[in-house]
């Protein structure tokens, strides 16, 4: 990971419209943050496994996705062993999903869609702190 590069976030969501909105929002409030979007969780895994790729600071992960859903992704992601924060960004405010997310050590936060300026800022404050200190 190179410190000179811009901080990066991943959005993993099967809905392209969601990705589009998230990109537009972050471009607006944090133009200096790099954004990568994936409509398939498998593609995000491939990207993460590639060593030369820049690693994101935060991964925003949707739960309900076809083929590989959020939980499947988390299981695979754990195997890679990267120290990256994961924030669940979903339209489900189902309590069972929330409980499951709380039990998962790697999931740091649970945000119900849509992502807002305040929600993203608080995530940035929490997880980009190291970066700011440097």
């Amino acid at each position, binding site marked *: 990971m190179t410190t000179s590069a811009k901080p990066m976030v991943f959005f993993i969501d099967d*809905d392209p*419209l969601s990705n589009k909105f998230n990109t537009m*929002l972050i471009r607006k409030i944090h133009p200096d943050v790099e954004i990568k979007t994936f409509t398939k969780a498998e593609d995000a895994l491939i990207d993460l496994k590639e060593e030369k790729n820049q690693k994101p600071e935060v991964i925003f992960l949707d739960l309900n996705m076809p*083929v590989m859903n959020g939980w*499947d992704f988390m299981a695979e992601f754990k195997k890679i062993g990267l120290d990256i924060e994961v924030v669940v960004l979903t339209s*489900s*405010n189902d309590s069972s999903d929330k409980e499951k997310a709380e039990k998962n050590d790697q999931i740091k936060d649970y945000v119900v869609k*849509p992502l807002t300026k305040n929600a993203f800022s608080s995530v940035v404050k929490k997880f980009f702190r190291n970066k700011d200190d440097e």
Partner: protein
Amino acid sequence: MWNLKKIVAEITHAGVTEAIAFEKQYRLKSMNLLCIIGILIISPYYFIFSMAGLWYPVIVVFLFHVSFFIVIVLNYFKYYSAGNYLLIFGTNMGILGMSYFIGFDSGFHLYFLTGPLFIFWIFDLDQKKLIAYAIALELVFVVMVFFAKAYTVAPYSWEQVGSLDIYYLNMSFNLFLIFLLFYNYTKYYQLLTDSLVQKQERLEEEAIKRIKSEEYTSKLFKDLSVSYKNLEQFSYIVSHNIRSPLSNIKGFVSLYEANEHGVQNDHVIESIKESAEQLDEIVMDLNVLLSAKNLLLENKRVVSLSGAIQNVGVSLAAEIQHSGAIIKEEFERDLNLVTIKTILHSILFNLFQNSIRYSKSDRYPEIIVTASKTEEYTEIRVSDNGAGIDLEKYNDRVFMLYHTFGEKTEGRGIGLFLVRSNVEMLGGRISVESKINEGTTFIIQFKN
């Protein structure tokens, strides 16, 4: 002119229709009959006694007649117990009175034989015991008479021949009474057994009804828990799939408000429109799923599986032609199901459509339908040579709403959910076997 049979029948029915219990009815009938027969049997005694100039016994016979007649009248006016007592009292007094004139030996014959019959009427005793009792008494009496005669110095004289004749007449009356007792007994016993059999049948019927209602309740409970599960999934969909485009709209709207540049706003409006369309599509899906429940209102009837497959083939004609799919039927031509036609059609339609959609691009889709009927189940297997499903991964999600598994995401994750809920609606169950790149088999079992 005189239809004796009809008259007797009518008299014997005096007061019967009003008596509710059949035993009572039957006892009334035999009581009336006994009175009629009593009247007829005693009638010759008028001649015998008047010929002999014995006027006092004629009066006794007359009283006998009157008491029999009064018994029938009492029964007719529903004074059943009064009739009963008069019959017993009157007959007994009459017999005793007659015995005085015709000799006590033959008189007591009557008395001992008829007595038990009346006791039966009053106390409703077991008839078997009663007959045994009557016969035993008769035997005791015969022995008594035998000894009485043996120790009587004077034998019967010619003057007594007349009374001897009466003795034989008495004997015939006795024999008739014995016959009546047996007749009574068999008839009554028959009726009693019939009623017991009927009672048992009624009980059995009730038990069957009860078991059926219990089965119905447990089926209802099962249906209810299935509906509940479906409802739960529905609410989950509502929370996710409807909220998803809604939250997009919400988000884009917030971007619009914060944005001064017109160019970006166009993007935002376009995206809101797209999200709205997505939302509309999902609501339409839900409509389809909900309207499927109304299919249950249709009646079950005999449906030929082969015919149903042909119908689905027609519905899917365009997709079949486009993909070059082949549908093979490997089961008995005349295999029938008792089912709701539209639901069966929907099940086969969705399975076939899936098979075509998720076929491998290097081969033509081939769908094989096999079916077999055992005593309990009708099993239908729909196999294809398509892409297959990774069951190790998706085992619990195959039949869930809005879950798709293939590389192709043409499907919207509704078909198999609909198939499962359709199968469950018909009281069946569905399972799946699959191998990646080889094909998938859906196994549906319906209870016969």
